[in-house]
């Protein structure tokens, strides 16, 4: 297996070392009220986000995602890939979770692209009972068929990990070792409105990396640190290199659990998760600039300005619509 791709664990360790050397500068940074070290992050000059048409969940997702990897120039050769779907809860006839066909398709596409290992992992924030969720959602059958290993992030070994930014003002969080060992994290959310955060997409999806067996169900510490703060710190720390969003059927209204299904018909992909979330927000009629977590992330992690996002695949206008949101979030609407 090639060894030139540093795992998340080694990247974080190195970051920690560099950060300790830069302590005086960090203190100066804190004085300026900046909760991140600008030298450790680079916002790309431009970010590509692809919207790929998918008519139903009967589609061959491996083909769609392989096309996306190719269009985005993603190189997975020799990588230990960690797929992080969104699997929160199961209730029959609802669309709460990333569809298992999309997860299985991503695993196949990653292998075809030369990944050395593909692991799927999730730590549901609601249902503690992963055995139930895997069976009920059908993900277990898909993963068995494709011989893909699943890791329950709620109950995995953990390591206290320094946070790469300090919006939550927390120095560290326990994170799962299986996630830290990987060297290419792919966030695979279901596109949903969220009654607290506005939107749950590739960044909010990272809440599922925080272990319930340490912090509980739900992961209430993340709420108390501030949901936008937690989203940004987790994204800065986990640094997903790719987002694959299941927007074949999305959720509107009182998401992330009690909302209604809404067919959109695409898979969104991009290497800048901030840009992917911003694009998905625009599709459903929300203004990324009004979302606290995206506004903060745009300072140092990625692009939300439409002028700096290159659209691939289908044009955004093909899918642009207006999702229902809870009344308290009406202020997030794009002005037309």
């Amino acid at each position, binding site marked *: 297996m090639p060894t030139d791709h540093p795992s998340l664990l080694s990247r974080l360790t190195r970051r920690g070392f560099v950060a300790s050397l830069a302590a005086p500068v960090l203190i100066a940074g804190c004085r300026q009220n900046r909760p991140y070290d600008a030298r450790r992050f680079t916002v790309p000059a431009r970010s590509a986000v692809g919207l790929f048409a998918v008519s139903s969940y009967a589609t061959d997702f491996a083909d769609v995602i392989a096309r996306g990897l190719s269009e985005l120039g993603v190189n997975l050769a020799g990588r230990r890939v960690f797929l992080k779907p969104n699997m929160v809860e199961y209730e029959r006839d609802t669309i709460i979770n990333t569809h298992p066909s999309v997860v299985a398709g991503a695993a196949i596409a990653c292998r075809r692209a030369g990944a050395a290992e593909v692991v799927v992992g999730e730590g549901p924030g609601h249902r503690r009972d992963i055995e139930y969720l895997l069976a009920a959602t059908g993900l277990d059958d898909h993963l068995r068929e494709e011989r893909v290993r699943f890791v329950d992030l709620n109950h*995995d070994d953990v390591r206290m990990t320094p946070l790469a930014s300090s919006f939550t003002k927390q120095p560290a969080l326990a994170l799962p070792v299986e996630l830290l060992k990987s060297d290419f994290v792919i966030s695979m959310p279901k596109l949903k409105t969220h*009654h607290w955060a506005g939107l749950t997409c590739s960044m909010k999806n990272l809440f599922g990396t925080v272990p319930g067996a340490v912090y*509980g169900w739900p992961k209430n510490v993340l709420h108390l640190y501030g949901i936008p703060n937690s989203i940004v710190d987790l994204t800065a720390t986990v640094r997903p290199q790719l987002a694959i969003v299941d927007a074949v059927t999305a959720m509107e209204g009182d998401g992330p659990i009690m909302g209604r299904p809404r067919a959109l018909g695409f898979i969104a992909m991009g290497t800048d998760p901030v840009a992917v979330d911003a694009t998905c927000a625009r599709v459903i009629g929300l203004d990324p600039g009004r979302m606290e977590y995206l506004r903060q992330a745009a300072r140092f992690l990625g692009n939300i300005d439409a002028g700096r996002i290159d659209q691939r695949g289908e044009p955004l206008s093909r899918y642009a619509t207006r999702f229902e949101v809870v009344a308290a979030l009406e202020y997030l609407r794009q002005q037309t």
Partner: protein
Amino acid sequence: MSTDPARLRSAIREALLESRNRDGTWPYVSGKQARLEPTCWALLALGRAGGRGPDLEVLERWQRRDHWLIDVDGAPPNQAFNGFAALTYLAHPDGRKQISLLAERIIATKAVRFPPSNLIRLDSSLQGWSWVDGTASWVEPTAWCLLFLKQYVKAGSVPAAAERISVGDRLLLDRACTDGGWNYGNSQVFGKDLWPYVPTTALALMAMQDRRSEPIVQRSLEQLQEDVASERSMSALALTIICSRVFGIPQVQVQRDLAALVERNQSRWSDNLLGLAMALYALEPGRGPDAFAL
């Protein structure tokens, strides 16, 4: 079920002993770090199988901070699992005298009180127990700490515990779902009823077994019997059996379902030692007192 029940239990015991770490602890997944929750379940299950109390030496060696048992180095103490560990101590005849300081911590601990909100229906004045310090009250940690305290005071009066038990009872009554059962924290968000879960309902019912005349406890018992029919996990089925046992409700079919599920999952036992230990406790007829009964 194809396997003889006694043979299945024997196979589970063997699997649990084989997956034990060298220091006598258990991880969630075979070969991984020692964790408090699966260790307590395995100790209780193997103790029940052997007709004796749990082997407390393992817990006596556990890392502690301010009398809390620490599950993960550097992480905050998990109050739910400390409540459960304290209950595990009480399953041993000599356990009570070893946990007076942990009991004091549990009695003194309160979840954060938040201002009332019109978005979430709950009595915010009630401060039960949280998962980790500085967060809200949740059903599972409150149920574990409440059940422990109710057992703890049985063997001798602890005046300071009475108020906490009263708050714990009131909190669980307040947080019950409209038709019975418990979600994780509350029963309604944004005006919508939340649905109950089998594991949380079973745990909360165990903690409320001395309040069985409460209508919501009765409704929750009915809800549990209804919901368990669609359950497919070892832990949910096991908790239902353990809960029903303390209420004196036979669960022949659920026992059969659990045994069949355990057998079907045999190739993956090492991936779910928590569920396996819970299943063993549930399937063991037991010769001594039940660790979860008041």
